[in-house]
């Protein structure tokens, strides 16, 4: 089972077991001097969590969203992180055989954070690697 979400017309997915929760907009405190893809920190019930801007991380072209991002809170081997996305999609299931390896090149996206791709009936699904995306 995968949770899907959108950014800049790309459809992304993460395994359901890697996602702790999804939060609709939270106040982001900016941390000056931090890497550009780090949007800031949020207060998730007392825990301070780093918010990563997915488009900046993956090098996507994007328009600045006006009314806040969704936070996909992802479990990693160390601390949970929040991945900022534009829209949340459906929960879908994909069979193992439909997961394809990452091609050498994908237009407009940095492939090092991608684990698999899958060709859905109407579009391409990009499965993120939750371990490398946290870096």
């Amino acid at each position, binding site marked *: 089972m995968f949770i899907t979400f959108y950014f800049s017309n790309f459809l992304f997915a993460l395994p359901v077991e890697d996602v702790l929760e999804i939060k609709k907009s939270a*106040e982001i*405190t*900016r*941390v*000056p*001097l*931090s*890497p550009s893809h*780090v949007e800031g*920190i*949020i*207060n998730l*019930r*007392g*825990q*301070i*969590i*780093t918010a*990563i801007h997915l488009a900046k991380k993956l090098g996507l072209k994007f328009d600045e969203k006006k009314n806040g991002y969704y936070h996909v809170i992802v479990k990693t081997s*160390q*601390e949970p*992180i929040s991945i900022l996305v534009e829209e949340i999609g459906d929960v879908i299931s994909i069979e193992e055989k439909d997961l394809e390896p990452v091609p050498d090149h994908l237009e407009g996206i940095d492939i090092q954070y991608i684990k698999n791709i899958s060709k859905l009936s109407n579009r391409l699904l990009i499965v993120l690697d939750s371990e490398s995306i946290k870096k």
Partner: protein
Amino acid sequence: MTDMIELDDEILQDFLAESKENIEQLDEKFVELEQDPTNKELLSSIFRIMHTLKGTSGFFGFTTLQAISHAAEDILAKLRDGVVSADQQIIDMLLKATDYIKAIVASIEKEKKEPEDKVYRDFIKVVREFADNLGKESEKNHEGQDRNENNIPKDKAENTKSAHNKDTQKQDFRKEEKAPVVHLTDTHIKVDIGLLDKLMNLAGELVLSRNRLVQIANSLNDPEIISATQRLSLVTTELQEEIMKTRMQPIGTVFNKFPRIVRDLSRVANKKVKLTIEGADTELDRSIIEAIKDPLTHIVRNSIDHGIEPPEERVKMGKPAVGHLLLRAYHEGGQVIIEIKDDGRGIDIEKVKEKALQKGLISEAEANNLSDREAINLIFKPGFSTAEKVTNISGRGVGMDVVKTNIEKLGGSIDIQTEKGRGTTLTMKIPLTLAIIPALIVSCHGQRYAIPQVNLKELVILNKEEIVKDVQVIGDSKFYRLRNEVIPLFYLEDILELPEQNTKDKMSIIILNSGLLEFGLVVDKILDSEEIVVKPLGKHFQGIPVYAGATLMGDGGIALILDVVGISSVLDIKKGETESIKHEAKDITSKGDEQFFLIFQISEQGEHFAIPLALVARLDKIKSKDIESVAGREVVQYRGYSMPLIRLDQFMPVSPLADKEEYNIIVFNTGGRDVAFLASHIVDSIHAYFELDEELYEFDGVLGSAIIRGHTTLFVDVFKIIEMYNPDWFKRYFSAKLCEILLAEDSVFYRNLISSYLSSFGYSVTTAKNGQDAWNKLQQYDFDLLLTDIVMPEMDGFELSFKVRQDERLKYMPIIAISSEDIKKSSDSGIDEFVPKLKLERLTGAIEKALQKRLKKAA
């Protein structure tokens, strides 16, 4: 005497607690060993436990315990060395030994002595024999595998016999002796520190939620809700306090180890030391107690090894033969202060400098110009150790730098005060707990930041007029004059690399001290002081030194916690440019504001000029249309007076002053009036001293030149220029008598500057480049007055004055010292008067006074 008994009891309790913990582990480890007989690591850890037990029981004179653990250790040694491998029999024997040990420990705990039953003595024999037999068996093993078979029946027989014996014995003592062990553990349970941490964090959260709720309740103004939240509030506070307490321990648990340490150390070092402990019941967070143990031990070692003198030396100095060491802890302002004070010889600052020089930590030039405080702080530099020879006690590779870093890691600070011959006091300031700290909340660009109170010195809020008056802008840097100090200012928004905002009418400055560097941090607003719960930041921020973490505020928002030490390290990097100049120009750092040079130009492409900032009264700007020409001289109406303006290009062969609409003016107040140089722009201020080249630009008005940031920079002789502008400038105010002055000063720059300044008053000045040179000149010529620097090569100012005072012909000669050295020292060295370098206005006064005094004396 009572102290000693209490101490013994304390040590005994420690021993019992440790032993019980170790023995608990033994059972488990033996079983593990049985399954994994070749596990070397496991074997070594068991061996260590048994070895410790043997050693400590011997120390207390528990002979039975010692004998059993000794035998067990022997068995383990054979296992460890691979002589035999752990089989069931051996493990059985070891477990039995452990059972006996347990019973003995229980008995000691209950009755403060070992049990005297015969069963124990019997068991000693059994286990001893078993251990020895293992040896024999192995010897035979060496002789040949075949014979093993012959041995087995014998061993087996013995083992069965002893095992049988013990079975019955075990039942005996289990009934009587095992009970106390159980009894003693049931009032205390072991709790994982991690769990306590988590409780602590949750309590912190609860406090924050409570704060939020109280805010809401107050705004709703419903009496029922208010009273309910008040109740919740109380319980929350109490809960938090209690949870804090679970982690609190009296500092005595560390302090109480010191009577023994001090005794042993002083014996080894052949010194007599009396230790006084105060405030042992002061409570601190457990993790902090753990963390200060080593730094504290190191400092105490240093005190005994380097601080306190041998008894003979002390008596010679009129001190009691027995040295005194004080360990004191107390609470102050949410912090725990720990003092380690000795009445020893103090830290020899000169030796510290020498050592730092030898080790290449500082340059010779730096050494000459360090203040005492800065010099003492050298001992915190990595790679420093004051011991002339590395002794057994100190100098084990752990330096004071490690002590300092460890204390700082805890959010604490460390400070040294020392007085030669009187002793040294080290003061550590440590937060009560790592989790909750008092902090100042400030804002910058609409976000809140928390600054730990530890580093806070004072808060200053300046209004518009005060900013003009007390803040000097020099190049890109700003300085604030706080009383007599010049403090560099840094904007938080610059440090955080945020866009610059419009300057406001008010300036909020937080004066911070990060150990060596004192600086003012300019923020948008100072909000409040609050207790904050420190939360770590994620790994994405770990490379950023300016943050110490984050905290949640009452309204659910987040404030970043600033790390003052980290900020000052960032500032160091930003100062890097200046640092590199220091290297190329062989910098001599001097003290206070004297080390700042103002660099300016009078035309875009023209020369760079340098003036000591201390001579400058003000920096300002004027419009060129405001410049009036009066009788061929330019003046400007400034602060209600006509102030003369000087164009440098009229007095020296340099490129002409640029035509501009607005000029910078550098205002000097000298000879009782203001006078200003016109400059096209101010380049920068530089915090350094430069080795001057006197020969390259040899004309009046220039003291010398140096290369600064790739530009040849002329050091302007301010007084000479003013005199050239108006030869009567100074004479109008002072009636200088013809008087021969000898000036001893090693720095070319100061020598020329002071000499020129005094000449402008009509004094006749002869210069000498150090104390020895001055002494030679004193022998050859007659002088009315000696003006001397203190820190000079070959012969310093103190030695020179001392020699002058000893000399029959010269002993009444007035001596004025020009230096920043401590005034106190001058009283017994024969120096009449002390004048800080570059406070030259005071120099003429001092000279007049000294000359008059001499006249009186002569009369």
